[in-house]
């Protein structure tokens, strides 16, 4: 058996996953804010931040969709070994990972139902670089307004919608469905 898929997990899972969860929670609560997220060493092409987020958020009850270049053997094995998450098509996913253009069209993903808005997808959008701010954000968790990079339009019908996590290297930020986006 190839050793690579089973290395690179948390060495101290309780502590590392709690710390990582706190970081994800923090950026999700404060749209536009970025944080450092590390601990996992996933195989390429997954970033450290995205790998850490997956180890923290996914388990055997969290169907994961891999889009584009992320749908490769090394990642499939790594995610399966460390989280047991089932790998599924876009319309069944709780979590999806990909570059923006591979995740599109976003209406493939579940946005929840009025009874269960939580039955929706969270997309982990991997960025090649961290571009300039291109949008003005307002809404919960933002005192007045803030500027941030937003990769594109996402379907929202609050309280239904998609939540986005943006990752690059060890950097993470988030855009929950509750945030109003106004492109500059």
């Amino acid at each position, binding site marked *: *058996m190839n*050793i690579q898929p089973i290395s690179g*997990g948390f060495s101290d899972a309780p502590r590392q996953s709690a710390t990582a969860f706190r970081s994800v929670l923090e950026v999700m609560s404060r749209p536009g804010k970025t944080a450092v997220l590390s601990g996992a060493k996933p195989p390429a092409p997954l970033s450290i931040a995205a790998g850490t987020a997956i180890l923290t958020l996914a388990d055997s009850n969290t169907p994961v969709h891999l889009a584009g270049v992320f749908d490769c053997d090394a990642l499939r094995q790594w995610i399966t*070994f460390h989280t047991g998450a089932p790998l599924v098509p876009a319309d069944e996913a709780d979590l999806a990972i990909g570059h923006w253009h591979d995740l599109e069209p976003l209406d493939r993903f579940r946005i929840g139902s009025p009874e269960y808005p939580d039955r929706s997808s969270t997309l982990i959008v991997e960025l090649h670089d961290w571009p300039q701010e291109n949008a003005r954000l307002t809404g919960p968790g933002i005192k007045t307004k803030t500027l941030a990079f937003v990769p594109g339009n996402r379907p929202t019908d609050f309280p239904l919608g998609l939540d986005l996590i943006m990752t690059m290297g060890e950097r993470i930020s988030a855009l929950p469905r509750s945030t109003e986006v106004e492109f500059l």
Partner: protein
Amino acid sequence: MTTITRRDWMGVLARSAPARLAHLLGATPQHSILRNPEIGAVMVRGRAGATGAPFNLGEMTVTRCTLQLEDGLIGHAYVQGRDKAHAIRAAIVDAQMQGPDANDIFARIVSPLLLDENVRKAAIASKAAATKVEFFTMVRGVD
């Protein structure tokens, strides 16, 4: 040459009594941990009407572990209960059984565990057999 499959020896190790496996293995060989021993639950499923659609019956505790021996062999263990040392020992034997010493390990560890299991099962079966009933029809009711 042993013909036991990996599936079978992993099952034997999982069902073994922790103290017995510890005794048979003796000193634990050098190894590095790839996944720390972790206690979790497995949802046990049954089938409606014994053969029908599956349903969730309830969970059981299980401990899993993955490690690598110095010669590079990787062993996995999934064992019932919450004994982390037992999971490590089971993973060690799983790794050893894939290597050149498999025959020796089988004879020294797996085979005695299989024997224990058969003795235990036979003891229960013989007690059950002693409670087997033959009901005789005394009078068949008339309509």
